[in-house]
């Protein structure tokens, strides 16, 4: 598992002298501290600019200047994205309930363990409701979650009152891809690291080691990202993807990072590009 960081460090301990003296190429960057593990969480990503029904960036992680990040492609990652539905001035029933329609995005059941309803803290659906006239915004108790009918009923609201709500649910429509992007003005370059349908990503048991998704491509299972490169999560879907932590979306990527002194920025970008290829 020798990655780019390892290569830049050189072959420590292996001191065989070549038969013919070869002038070593200048390393484009030199690690100045040992590589340490770095887990990219959902909170580490910032929002992209999603365009509905176009493959576009929903979340991005930008590698800081002076740092090299290597994604561990052979280790499982987790990714659960939530569709965001907004309701404004929706009247609750006489029983204090509101039915939320997820049919536009296809509500999907993940294999994650769910509580017995009615409950809050459901892995697939989170709803926050606030009376439209003002009041306390709180997580609503879920009464039913109907995956085949794509609807969710929340309960415990004040009867016959208008509510605004933010509903987040695991969705199944569209495709998702992970790309490494080197922004260079209008001339950015991107390498796709992973792609799948949103449905397959969400229906897969990501907690089980045998089925969890992996990147698994490229040089030796390690995917380097240079300084200012982005790990971009892109989605082509009719669903508006939530980028806020209250949606309880999950991202969990195993990586290693090393502080580097960059001598040749273009050269480093080129070797990152070559290794991603």
């Amino acid at each position, binding site marked *: 598992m020798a990655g780019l960081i390892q290569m830049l460090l050189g072959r420590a301990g292996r001191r065989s002298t070549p038969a013919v003296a070869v002038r070593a190429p200048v390393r484009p960057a030199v690690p100045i501290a040992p590589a*340490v*593990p770095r887990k990219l969480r959902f*909170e580490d990503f910032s929002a992209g600019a999603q365009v509905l029904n176009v493959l576009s960036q929903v979340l991005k992680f930008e590698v800081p200047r002076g740092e090299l990040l290597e994604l561990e492609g052979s280790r499982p990652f987790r990714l659960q994205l939530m569709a965001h539905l907004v309701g404004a001035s929706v009247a609750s029933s006489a029983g204090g309930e509101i039915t939320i329609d997820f049919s536009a995005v296809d509500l999907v059941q993940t294999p994650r363990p769910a509580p017995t309803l009615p409950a809050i*803290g459901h892995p697939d659906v989170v709803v926050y409701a606030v009376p439209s006239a003002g009041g306390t915004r709180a997580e609503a108790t879920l009464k039913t979650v109907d995956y085949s009918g794509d609807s969710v009923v929340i309960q415990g609201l004040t009867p016959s009152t208008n509510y605004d709500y933010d509903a987040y649910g695991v969705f199944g429509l569209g495709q998702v891809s992970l790309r490494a992007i080197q922004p260079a003005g209008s001339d950015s370059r991107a390498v796709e690291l992973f792609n799948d349908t949103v449905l397959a990503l969400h229906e897969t048991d990501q907690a*089980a*080691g045998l089925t969890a998704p992996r990147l698994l491509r490229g040089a030796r299972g390690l995917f380097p990202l240079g300084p200012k490169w982005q790990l971009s999560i892109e989605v082509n879907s009719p669903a508006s993807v939530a980028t806020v932590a209250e949606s309880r979306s999950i991202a*969990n990527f195993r990586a*290693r990072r090393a502080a580097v002194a960059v001598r040749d920025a273009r050269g480093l970008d080129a070797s990152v590009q070559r290794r991603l290829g």
Partner: protein
Amino acid sequence: MASQTLRSVKIHPDHAYVVAKTSNTANVRSGGLVIEAPNNVFLVLDQFFAPVVKLFTSAPAALSASTRVFIGKKRKGDDTPTFLPGVFTLHDFSDLTTAQQRDRDNRDTLVQDLGRGMVLREGEQMIIEFDGPDVIDWTQAGTAFEFNLGWSAV
């Protein structure tokens, strides 16, 4: 120097080596477990950490999966612990029962890379702290935080 080969000791919240088991403060890195190497004992933590974790709040409800776990070492005379670079969340653990977490098939998703291992000489402490929105109640039935340390007599 260790005079014997290492053998394994299973640490859990009620183990004799756990000298403090405190609840954390919500949204602050705090609380947790303190493991101290007793006299004449030498403990070794591997870089690749494979605990079995199931933690609850006093409700009881499962601890928020976004809780982060920090592992550090505090020597005698240290004001603050030195934390290992690898920090992990409970996302990997929260969807699996403890029995599933012991399943070899799930090892790949559960093993956490701490970046470095750790050696505890006698009197030195391993500090496990938590940072998340929920407060741990260590008295709840079914609570687990188990892992192995290498053990040797000095």
